[in-house]
């Protein structure tokens, strides 16, 4: 192994190790109830993120010097038994390196912003534990060279996002919205898990090299039959739709704005919402195996872009408006992937992520500036009419306005057509079980029906 490759290997290990160590540090201190000061937490975050960023940039520079475009770092088998092994492998290529650098760059920026924004906030420490978990998830997902490793990072991102949405936990709304986000994530994660397992079976292992062809991204060619590619690709698309808020899961995105601004910026404006598109880019050789799949991807992307544009146009809350603006771009990125423009999609993704981070971080002060301006002129700022007013008749515009105001009815559809009947059905089963146990017991059998949660002083329980 040449010296350059050895250096790149060690740097690559460090890129993953930096956020992992941060998780251990902050997590173990929380478990042991050692309260870290704000300064110590900030220093740890800065050290881990900046050093991780420097290591990723160093790898990029070394790759450019060496002329190599595909560096694989095999940590080894996490688990190995006959007929099954779980490898931990990371890859540095044209897709993962920009994504890893973007992750470090934006988490670092938002970390610095959050250290002031969250100053003396209750749960400061909790925020940074979840932040470190998110950073680790993003880096692992970006660099994963096996589908199982990607799944690990994907899950970490999902959990930290849901808990951050519910960060302001003294109110019920953030908790409800956090749960909604988690439900969407879990269902789409199940699709990813299945896709991972099915692919593992087809290729005998979960390495992307094996699954997507040996060529470095984006030149790999998957050797899947069109039908197999369609099934696996649809599972991937479902997973991507959940994570990126594509139709029909777009409703979780504005709900996620319940979290603090730094987490909105990083998780939903910049990184998390692009993760679905990143997944599609990673498995794009599979998309190429099926024309039907490509068409589905393009249609879903365009549909998301149009609906997000409509919903975003009528939002009165700046964070919700920004999130829909971001989503409409994500829809376009997905459509570009479906059309086979991979580099364009990657550049679009990087640009959109940086722009939205800036907008989210600027949002609180922008509102303040607007108020100052409006106070100065003594009136609302003038808003020029959009092209819709000239091009679309009044009746259609009213309908579109209502449609957009209801966030294109996607939440209603998920809630009333899927969730409510599900709850209704199983509540009926619960009632049947209740009657059955009452019948066998010959008396009222459920204590939980009569017992109300205790709210008095604890001494009375003794």
């Amino acid at each position, binding site marked *: 192994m040449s010296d350059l490759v050895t250096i790149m290997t060690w740097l690559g290990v460090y890129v993953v190790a930096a956020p992992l160590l941060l998780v251990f540090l902050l997590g173990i201190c*929380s*478990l*042991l*109830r050692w309260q870290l000061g704000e300064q110590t937490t900030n220093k740890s975050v800065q050290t881990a993120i900046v050093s991780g960023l420097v290591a990723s940039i160093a790898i990029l520079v070394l790759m450019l010097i060496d002329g190599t475009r595909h560096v694989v770092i095999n940590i080894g088998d*996490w*688990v190995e*038994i*006959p*007929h*099954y092994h*779980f490898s931990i492998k990371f890859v540095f290529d044209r897709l993962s390196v920009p994504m890893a650098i973007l992750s470090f760059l934006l988490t670092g920026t938002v970390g610095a912003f959050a250290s002031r924004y969250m100053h003396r906030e*209750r749960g400061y420490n909790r925020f940074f534990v979840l932040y470190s978990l998110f950073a680790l998830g993003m880096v692992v997902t970006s660099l994963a060279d096996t589908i*199982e490793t990607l*799944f*690990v990072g994907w*899950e970490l991102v999902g*959990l930290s996002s*849901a808990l951050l949405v519910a960060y302001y*936990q*003294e*109110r*019920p709304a953030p*908790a*409800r919205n*956090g*749960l909604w986000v*988690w439900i969407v994530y*879990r*269902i789409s*994660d*199940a699709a990813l*898990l*299945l896709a991972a*397992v*099915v692919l593992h*079976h087809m290729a005998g292992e979960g390495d992307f090299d094996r699954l997507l062809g040996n060529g470095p991204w984006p030149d790999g060619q998957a050797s899947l039959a069109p039908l197999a590619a369609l099934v696996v690709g649809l599972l991937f698309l479902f997973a991507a739709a959940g994570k990126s808020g594509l139709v029909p899961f777009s409703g979780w995105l504005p709900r996620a704005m319940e979290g603090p601004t730094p987490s909105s910026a990083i998780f939903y404006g910049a990184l998390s919402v692009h993760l679905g598109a990143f997944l599609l880019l990673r498995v794009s050789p599979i998309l190429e195996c099926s024309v039907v799949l490509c068409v589905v991807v393009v249609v879903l992307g365009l549909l998301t872009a149009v609906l997000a544009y409509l919903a975003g146009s009528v939002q009165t809350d700046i964070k919700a408006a920004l999130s829909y603006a971001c989503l409409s771009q994500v829809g376009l990125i997905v459509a570009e992937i479906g059309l086979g423009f991979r580099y364009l999609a990657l550049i679009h993704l990087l640009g959109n992520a940086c722009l939205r981070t800036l907008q989210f971080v600027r949002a609180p002060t922008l509102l303040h500036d607007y108020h100052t301006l409006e106070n100065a002129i003594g009136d609302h700022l003038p808003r020029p009419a959009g092209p819709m007013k000239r091009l679309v008749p009044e009746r259609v515009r009213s309908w579109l306005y209502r449609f957009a105001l209801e966030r294109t009815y996607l939440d209603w559809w998920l809630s009333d057509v899927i969730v409510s009947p*599900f709850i209704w059905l*199983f*509540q009926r*089963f*619960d009632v049947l*079980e209740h009657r059955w*146990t009452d019948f*066998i*017991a*010959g*008396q009222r*059998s*459920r*204590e*939980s029906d009569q*017992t*109300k*949660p*205790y*709210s008095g*002083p*604890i*001494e009375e*329980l003794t």
Partner: protein
Amino acid sequence: MNILQLPWLEFAILLSLLGALCVSRCHDPIRASRWGLAFTGTVFGFTILAWLGHYLGVKAGDGWSLQTYYLGSRILELDALSAPLAPSVALLHFLTALATARTKMRRFSFSWSLASEAIRLATFSCTDPWLLISLLVLCTIPAYVELVNRGKPTRVYVLHMALFVGLLVLGWTFVEPAANHNAQPAWAVIPLLAAILVRCGSVPVHCWLTDWFEHASFGNALLFVAPLSGVYAAARLVFPIAPDWVLHSLGIVSLFTAIYAACMATIQQDARRFFAYLFLSYSSLVLVGLELVTSISLAGALSLWFSVTLGLGGFGLTLRALEARVGRLSLADFHGLYDNSPALAVCFLITGLASVGFPGTLGFIATELLVDGAVEANLAIGIIVAFAAALNGIAVLRAYFRLFTGKRHASTVSLQIGLREHIAVLTLSALILGGGLFPQLGISSRHDAAQEILHGRQENLRTAARHWRVP
């Protein structure tokens, strides 16, 4: 003589019985708790030594063994399947005793707990069919006494357990005369299959489990179900002799139970019932893995078994600690307990996520293996297993949000976690995260156990085939 050659398992069982007797003489609950803790802790230490002896391949000497002295042979012994289960059962008893709050010491019977521990340890180290059946029957008695002592309705429990015992004895009565022939008639295996389904709480005979959680003290309810005695009975009694169609039937019913219980867990309004359904879903997933009869699915099922015992055991202990503070927990409302006890909230998340197979925890590789084995058998089974796991994850986080967030809980006294509870929490977290980050040892051991089970089953089938060819 090597210290590991001592019969530590026998010592552990005897010490549990001795402990039960001693603690039953203590009338002061705090004193009883101290003695109970000392006994369960020592028993746990002994089971660790027994496991270590098995792991290192040290043959236990006969010099100190009461079994060889009185019976001439060993009928209670650890093998690949039971070796890690015995310490996990002992650990669960120890942690339950350790995390028993003062408010609960009067209600939780340490002597009955120790007696149950002795029966469970004997059950999990027993391979002789009739003795195993006797121990499984015996296991049901302390639970009945618990209900009677608490003045709770017993009919649901008694009816189901009577059905279980009756079917088990009936089934094995038909099996035993043909024991050397191995190919069992339907009238032997069907009652056995039904008995296992009743004991594991499969739908539609699952109501005793939710009823048991309604009426028993949480600690005893947990200790009765968490070690998965029903699954052990299936692995020892049904799996080696059952024809394929019996295993498929078991698998179909278990698969349905897993998804049904997962759905029910997501809509429950009471924390105990939620836990009961969560548990039911996972114990059924273990049975699904057993039924698939491949080395991967079996290794996944056995790993999941271990993870369920520790993960869901710890999850139950966290819920119990919460109940000790605020009484019976409703999931219909938000409780906002995070600020009052952040350590419990973290433990709730860790144990809850471990039980649903979150990456980095004990259950992750187990769930991966199980889904892998399921997809290998049939894609539809894989989809259902993955969907059940996803629903259980939703149920866990819903419970977390309901219990720890949504409002600010006002309390006149501190609800912070106590030192003993904190030790229990840290021990469990270390095991769950340690086992999740370094899973090779555990998975290899479970794979070896799976191979042993498969080998036993293939041997039996081969012998049976030879027998039926001979006129």
